[in-house]
């Protein structure tokens, strides 16, 4: 199934209604927080505020659900991780979803996958970090996987020799990293001359996620980020920035060549007024993200703390369906009080 074409809204609504009922029955806190049983339109479907996953264990129990492990967010802003309970059914759907979306951007061809992380990050029982989950989501597109960092917190531990060996045997490579790691370890790194020479003319698809917050703080501009990564590479090389949340695992929103983020058939995006929660069709607001993949916990409809706006008309890239522009996080200010907050 192609991810971007005209959607059957009635079918999507029916699936979302069924999922909502499933979570109401199987997840006690969700059942308590969601008033009502009838949700006659997509815009009336209830959502869970994204902060709930940092504050309360949301897990849906059912005969058909086998919970496997927890997915943790990076906790860069608040210091508290979101915890998403991953189940077998959803994980399979999510994996297929990510691959279908990515194939639409990087193509069907399998190639070596280089991950800007350390192999040690994999070794954690019962839980998986958002970083590793995102990287391993690309696994079905790969012929082999290599980790390029010895220590994720130290970009100077970049394994240039590993990269060199892969470059010796392949012309097309897929690279994944968190945005700031990709910049520190590769974009702004002093690349050894022999690696530079080996990179020349190679086609590299850089896929990155995690947001621009850290790079904005370092005044790294989008254009200089792309220019640094693509220097001397082959014409088919590209840098793909995608937006995704652990609370929407399985759905990613790559930025297309025309600056849009396209909504796949099995997902939806609603922009809401932060003060009234009413849908906004032609202006900026708070993003609500939906998908039909989440069976193990009620993250099928999430009100995020990100701002965005829906884009009207057809996109120049040719993809069909709903699309939006991501505008960044809701601005925050320190709450004034005394000491006990």
């Amino acid at each position, binding site marked *: 199934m192609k991810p971007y074409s005209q959607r059957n809204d009635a079918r999507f609504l029916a699936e979302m209604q069924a999922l909502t009922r499933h979570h109401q029955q199987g997840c006690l*806190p*969700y059942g*308590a*927080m969601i*008033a009502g049983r009838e949700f006659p339109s997509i815009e009336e479907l209830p959502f*869970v*505020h994204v*902060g*709930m996953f940092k*504050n*309360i264990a949301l897990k849906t129990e059912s005969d058909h659900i086998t919970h496997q492990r927890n997915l943790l967010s990076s906790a860069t802003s608040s210091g508290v991780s979101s915890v998403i309970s991953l189940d077998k059914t959803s994980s399979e759907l999510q994996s297929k979803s990510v691959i279908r979306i990515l194939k639409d951007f990087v193509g069907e061809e399998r190639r070596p996958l280089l991950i800007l992380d350390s192999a040690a990050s994999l070794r954690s029982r019962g839980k998986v970090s958002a970083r590793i989950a995102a990287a391993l989501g690309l696994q079905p597109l790969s012929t082999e996987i290599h980790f390029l960092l010895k220590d994720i917190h130290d970009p100077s531990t970049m394994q240039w020799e590993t990269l060199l060996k892969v470059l010796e045997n392949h012309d097309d490579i897929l690279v994944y990293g968190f945005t700031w790691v990709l910049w520190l370890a590769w974009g702004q790194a002093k690349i050894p001359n022999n690696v530079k020479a080996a990179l020349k003319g190679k086609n590299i698809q850089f896929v990155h996620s995690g947001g621009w917050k850290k790079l904005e703080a370092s005044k790294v501009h989008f254009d200089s980020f792309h220019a640094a990564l693509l220097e001397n590479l082959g014409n088919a090389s590209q840098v793909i920035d995608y937006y995704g949340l652990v609370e929407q695992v399985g759905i990613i929103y790559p930025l297309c060549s025309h600056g849009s983020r396209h909504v796949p058939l099995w997902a939806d995006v609603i922009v809401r007024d*932060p*003060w*009234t*929660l009413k849908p906004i069709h032609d202006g900026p607001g*708070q993003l609500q993200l939906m998908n039909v993949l989440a069976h193990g916990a009620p993250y099928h409809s999430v*009100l995020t*703390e990100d701002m965005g706006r829906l884009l009207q008309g057809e996109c120049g890239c040719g993809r069909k369906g709903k699309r939006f522009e991501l505008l960044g996080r*809701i*601005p*925050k*200010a*320190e*709450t*004034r*009080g*005394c*000491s*006990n*907050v």
Partner: protein
Amino acid sequence: MSEQSVNTVVFQSAGTVTGVKLPFDLDAMVQAWSSLRTAMIREIPDGFTRDEWAYLISFMSSESLNGVYESTFGKRLVGEQAITETLTIRDNVALWLPNNVSLLGPLVMILVSITGSALHVKIGSRSENLCEVLSQWALTNTAEGPLKSWLENKLVLMRIGRGDPRLKRLSQWANIKMAFGSDSGCRAIADLPSRPDAINFSFSDKQSRIWCLKEELTDDVIQMIIKVFSIYGRAGCTSPQCLTILDGTEADCLELAERLTEYWPKTIRKDVEMHIASDNVLSLQLARAKQWNAWLVARNKAVISVGPADAELPSGHLHLPISGASLDEATAALPDNIQTIGFVMSEARQKEVAEHLEGTQVKRFVPVEQMHHFGPVWDGMEFWKALFCEESSHDQKTRV
């Protein structure tokens, strides 16, 4: 007139006549603060909210500032008096303010200024510095005199990080150390090397509550509760963490919740910031998930919830949980770090409740509208009186 006679102010409380020796003319200092109020009415400098500025205007009146002396030392006397104790300032006051501190910084600054003590303030390294805003504004708007002199020569504001070596020197310099902050933050400040006779005041994590009687909840009272709560939400030590209707039923609580929800948008016209509106949605869902009955106020301005008095309070900055409880149940539900109970009740019931609270950890029992009022006694500590020490206890005669 001798220098001492100009600067010694005499007060009488019961049989004690206290002469307070000050390094400046108290009346001129009080008048200087008070005179600023006319200009304050015309202009709110950036950084202050309208509520904060209005409270400062009231706090800086001569009645209020003279009241600080009189509530501490007794009625002010004029004429020749037999002084039974003479106090002088300890001087060298160090104040630590955390990043999110509200008006407490400027209020402490004003209270210290009227003693003439030197004040060095460690302000939050990333916060809006209200002390600096007020002191600059006052310097621009006050004439030559004791206030200008104090601001220029005795006040030092230090925006430095927690690990800065100057903090150790500040601690060693101070005769009085005052800190607002978390328990651990205050402990760390108290543990810094100090003079052997230094006095330490830690104003750490505290909580407050509203107790009211159903029959006292008029429309005016409801609007007043909304105004008081909206100033800091639940972020301040004086902010109500919840409201208890004494002897109230669940139906009483639901009725109050409905009236609060109705009056809130009429009382607080301004929208909350976008992230607060979003946080309120989260608070609503968290409360419901924990089985509290909860509602969002129009335009996501706040959350009101109703639940049992003995249940864990639901979280949220602008979330007011309501419960009904007997006096014993409400007392049993008080946290160890309770500071203020703001009340709405008849005089007779106030007396009964005040007696009931004797021996508890409650530090203040005040009408709801006074919950955020700051004064020379805080968290049960007479910190302002401690800015003075006894010079000698022999009889002195002086004309003032």
